[in-house]
């Protein structure tokens, strides 16, 4: 899996046609091979450290713990619970952030009214809201989903807003001189032109939603990956902590890949440098 986002293609300014007809991009095999080598090396270092007596479990111990946790269904359940929370918060957060970001970018009044609150809440880490959320919403799912919602919303609203205000003035004028009115300009120019910004916002939002989720589960939960790690800590159960950490990393990476593919498909029209 190529972990680094590489630019899609190096299209030369003067030679656009030729370069777009020939095979785009560099050979794919090499970065993939490098990624694989890097992962293997990392595991090797880990294994060596464990063998040298550093207090980490052997990779093999972690694998067998993962097998045990999968066999009794704990890991699957924890993953499902955690994913459910993060998706609920993330979907709600972006669903609110995108219209709010558009309104802020399009109407100066909305921007003036909403912006101070967003800037204010942005300076508070969502985790700092947890004590308040627990007191107000109980120890159910609600406070966890709420803080995840907040994290995703804040990340996504800012970039949607940025996307709308940075739409090229000339494109709006081009639509206007073709007779297009405000509603049409919004739907046919502003929305597509700000899609790249929104997708970047969604990726950042997903990242911070995921980070917030795990922390929220560490503080107050009865199941989920964060809870499992917190619980393992009490029993000095290092392999379980490792299983949790690796699961979180892999899931986060997979979700980011999904959004990256969406981004490539929806914003392939962009000229990349």
């Amino acid at each position, binding site marked *: 899996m190529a972990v680094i986002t590489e630019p899609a293609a190096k299209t030369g300014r003067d030679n656009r*046609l030729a370069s777009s007809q020939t095979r785009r991009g560099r050979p794919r095999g090499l970065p993939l091979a490098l990624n694989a080598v890097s992962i293997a090396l990392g595991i090797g270092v880990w294994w060596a450290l464990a063998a040298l007596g550093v207090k980490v479990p052997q990779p093999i111990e972690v694998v067998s713990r993962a097998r045990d946790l999968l066999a009794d269904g704990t890991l699957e359940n924890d993953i499902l619970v955690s994913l459910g929370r993060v998706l609920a918060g993330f979907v709600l957060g972006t669903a609110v952030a995108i219209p709010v970001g558009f309104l802020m970018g399009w109407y100066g009044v909305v921007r003036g009214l909403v912006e101070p609150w967003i800037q204010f809440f942005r300076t508070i880490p969502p985790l700092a809201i947890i004590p308040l959320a627990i007191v107000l919403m109980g120890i159910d799912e609600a406070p966890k989903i709420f803080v995840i919602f907040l994290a995703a919303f804040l990340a996504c609203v800012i970039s949607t807003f940025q996307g709308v205000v940075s739409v090229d003035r*000339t494109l709006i004028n081009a639509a206007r*001189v*073709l007779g297009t009115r405000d509603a049409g300009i919004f739907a046919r120019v502003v929305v597509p032109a700000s899609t790249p910004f929104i997708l970047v916002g969604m990726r950042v939002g997903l990242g911070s939603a995921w980070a917030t989720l795990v922390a929220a589960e560490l503080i107050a939960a009865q199941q989920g990956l964060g809870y499992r790690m917190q619980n393992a800590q009490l029993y000095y159960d290092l392999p379980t902590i490792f299983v949790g950490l690796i699961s979180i990393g892999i899931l986060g990476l997979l979700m980011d890949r999904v959004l990256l593919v969406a981004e490539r498909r929806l914003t392939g*029209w962009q000229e990349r440098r």
Partner: protein
Amino acid sequence: MTTSNSPRPGTQAAKISVQAVTKTFSLGRQTFTALDQVSLDIADNEFVTVVGPSGCGKSTLLNILAGLEEPTEGQAIVDGTPVSGPGPERGVIFQQYALFPWLTVRKNVEFGLKTARVPKAERRERADYFIRMVGLEDFADALPKMLSGGMRQRCAIARAYAVNPSILLMDEPFGALDALTRVKLQEQLLDTWSKEQRTVMFITHDVDEAVFLANRVVVMAARPGRIYDVIDVDLPYPRSEEFRLSPEFAALRNRVWHSVYHQDGTTPSSPPALTTA
């Protein structure tokens, strides 16, 4: 200087009439006069080029006619009606092409037709006609990022033509292109214009281009932006390479050149002398 120009003899009421238009901008505490009492009439199906140094307000004049900017004083009249906002009867072609990068060539050309709620089949037919006219039929499904600068501008010209405007306002459309492409596009533009007659106001800073294309060259001066001279190009179309190399062309070009580069009172004075210790 205030110059008023009536349409060429033999034409009736002007298609475009700019009447004592003044446009000022305030930059901090200073006021900057982009256009000072500019009056200009353009006849139906006339091809007028506007040439002048940067800062002479030529783009501002075009934007006022397009309805993208409002004059501070005076008014612009098109077909007997004062301009109040943009409209599809006045097509605009921008220097930066302004193609929608997420739409293919065909979808770009169809954009204005979709706004006008033209049915799909007819939309496609019209778009294809104008795409063929500018010679982009092999690239109808390509995205703008795959096109060269010249092809992008041809697509923009097709897009402007597709909504059937009676006026084309062109703001240095070939300014960003290399000299060879520019010459080719000038000839193609005249070819298109002879097939599909429109009233054209074409802004440029290139004297050759101004003379080659126009019925009439309007020379503007800067600080404040005003019309400095109007030069008729009474030479027949179609114009080709032969025309470009003819002595008549050279003579006119010299006249316009002098008018642009030797405007009274605008010759740059020498910079203040450096005092060395």
